[in-house]
């Protein structure tokens, strides 16, 4: 079994001029990067890590925007044998102090030896580091030096074992940054083998991605799989895509893209926000699978996307689905490759009241569920009740999985790792059911997590921020996600209990909460709902019951 570095060395020596990726950045001509160039750029970073005394097996955190430095620094860390972890870059609206707190949270648990960033951002990084910090080097992208031929005999990456950890993946916010998913070379390869087989991936495919590389969907499906498996990648920046979604369509058309992954909201976003003139001459007929992944999938989103882009050659059979999580490297299931995605119409009341996904009858309200498909090879899925009992087909419970590509653990968090498993099965925190001979349907979430536009957000982080606002008391705030059909994603609502009954003062507190939360987490709030004391329901152990509070909120809003 090889390691990442072995595969990269192989491309470099045997097919140096083969295309690794095309980089599409606004205001610059598209650039083709061969494996030779990729490895040379990475070797310059590997040398910098060496010069700074970073040891193989140590973690390096990359705080860079999507572009060449991020690509080269990532593979440079791999070649050096260090463990890269990509942290989201500071966004405009996030307060620098808050970013420092996030960074400090990451450093405290992960204990990285180096941080790579831009010269203009280095002072921010230094400001986040406490005396005695494990970070021995803040490496700035300007001081890396020219690309050079890698000397494989000297590179630490060539002496790693397949059982060693190769990378860490974090989700955002204090909670997410303290829970890094650690993956071994072996686990990633096992996933890529199973998943490329599920996709029928061939070297003639072209993967087009604008997804962030700090998220599993972007990092695995939209970066590592194509580069390590020798499939050309067309890489765009999420920062630019969100401002110009048409660029995805133009890129697919120009490069004859065959595969892409999108979070559900992106189907709505593209269908609603692309002008006709930006689609002139666009041909999407090369797209063979667009996999909906990383947030709840909606039938209506697929339909809207299809309707909008069918005149441009989009084939209905290209619409696919995928259920994935960083803890399984990426894909758990894949649907829509062997035939259209199965749509399961179920009885709404049976689903909500009896937790049973009973097929709908014509005269009763129903819900259309999109199948996430069959588990990929090497991954087993089962659905269990709260007490761990196996549920029969169509019983709704927690999705559990076991695979040959599980995480090695949450990095430096044996407590969290232990909690995540029961009898060798990883408990996903997602609710779902199985039907049609092993197809998986994901129907909700048990864990406290909000997913906005594919991004995982922990409600407790937002509640902590809201409690900083004057007039708001600790323990008297609750945050949860509410699905917005038009946007195709969840939006965040915060309910806060206050003592004052003066409307003006309440409005002021609401505005303050909005500002504090947005500046502290880069999450925009859909609604801040101010109530009097004793509104928020608690569990018997005094914890905030987020689902119960969400239901109460939805009912009150509906009655207004």
């Amino acid at each position: 079994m090889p390691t990442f570095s072995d595969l990269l060395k192989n491309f470099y020596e045997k097919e140096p001029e083969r295309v690794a990726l095309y980089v599409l950045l606004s205001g610059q001509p598209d650039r083709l990067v061969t494996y030779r160039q990729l490895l040379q750029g990475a070797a310059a970073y590997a040398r910098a890590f060496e010069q700074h005394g970073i040891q193989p097996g140590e973690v390096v955190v990359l705080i860079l925007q999507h572009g060449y430095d991020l690509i080269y620094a990532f593979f440079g860390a791999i070649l050096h044998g260090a463990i890269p972890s990509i942290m989201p870059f500071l966004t405009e609206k996030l307060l620098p102090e808050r970013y420092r707190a996030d960074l400090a949270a990451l450093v405290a648990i992960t204990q990285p030896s180096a941080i790579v960033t831009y010269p203009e951002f280095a002072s921010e990084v230094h400001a986040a580091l406490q005396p005695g910090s494990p970070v021995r080097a803040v490496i700035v992208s300007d001081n890396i030096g020219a690309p050079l031929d890698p000397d494989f005999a000297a590179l630490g990456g060539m002496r790693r074992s397949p059982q060693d950890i190769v990378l860490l993946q974090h989700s955002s916010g204090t909670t997410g940054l303290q829970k890094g998913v650690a993956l071994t070379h072996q686990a990633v390869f096992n996933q890529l083998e199973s998943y490329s087989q599920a996709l029928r991936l061939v070297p003639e495919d072209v993967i087009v991605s604008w997804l962030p590389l700090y998220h599993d969907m972007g990092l695995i499906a939209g970066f590592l799989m194509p580069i390590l498996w020798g499939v050309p990648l067309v890489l765009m920046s999420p920062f630019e895509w969100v401002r110009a979604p048409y660029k995805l369509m133009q890129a697919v058309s120009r490069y004859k893209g065959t595969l892409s992954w999108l979070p559900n909201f992106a189907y709505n976003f593209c269908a609603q926000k692309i002008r006709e003139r930006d689609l002139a001459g666009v041909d999407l007929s090369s797209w063979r699978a667009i996999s909906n992944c990383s947030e709840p999938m909606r039938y209506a989103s697929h339909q809207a996307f299809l309707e909008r882009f069918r005149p441009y050659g989009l084939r209905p059979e290209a619409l696919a689905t995928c259920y994935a999580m960083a803890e399984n490297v990426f894909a758990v299931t894949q649907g829509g490759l062997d035939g259209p995605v199965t749509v399961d119409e179920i009885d709404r009341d049976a689903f909500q009241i009896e937790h049973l996904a009973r097929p709908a009858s014509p005269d009763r309200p129903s819900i259309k569920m999109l199948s996430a498909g069959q588990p990929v090879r090497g991954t087993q899925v089962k659905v269990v009740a709260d007490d761990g009992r196996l549920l029969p087909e169509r019983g709704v419970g927690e999705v559990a999985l076991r695979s040959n590509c599980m995480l090695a653990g949450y990095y430096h968090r044996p407590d969290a790792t232990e909690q995540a498993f029961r009898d060798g099965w990883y408990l996903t925190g997602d609710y779902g059911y199985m039907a049609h001979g092993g197809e998986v349907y994901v129907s909700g979430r048990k864990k406290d997590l909000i997913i906005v536009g594919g991004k995982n957000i922990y409600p407790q982080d937002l509640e902590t921020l809201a409690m900083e606002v004057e007039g708001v008391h600790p323990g008297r705030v609750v945050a949860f996600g509410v699905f917005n059909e038009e946007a195709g994603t969840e939006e965040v609502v915060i309910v806060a209990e206050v003592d004052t009954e003066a409307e003006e003062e309440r409005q002021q507190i609401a505005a303050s909460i909005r500002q504090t939360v947005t500046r502290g987490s880069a999450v925009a709030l859909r609604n801040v709902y101010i109530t009097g004391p004793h509104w928020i329901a608690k569990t018997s152990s005094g914890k905030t019951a987020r689902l119960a509070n969400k239901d109460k909120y939805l009912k009150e809003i509906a009655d207004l």
Partner: protein
Amino acid sequence: MTEDIVPALAQQIAAKILKQPKRTLKPDEPLISSGVIDSFSLVDVALLVEDTYGVRIGDSELNAETFDTLNQLAELIRARQA
């Protein structure tokens, strides 16, 4: 001219983009750098401005350096209408 644009923009952005029709946006209030308009809504601002005023805002201009407040956005619209 700019004076007429600002209240109309304030009302449209509050109602159509923020989905908070009762919200009052001040002419000099930072909208992008503060996160009031989040990145998912920047395209909506460009679409709204083009549909209402016939002025195009490029993708690379959808940032706080180009315009952050209603006054600045109105100024940009006025300059391009001229």
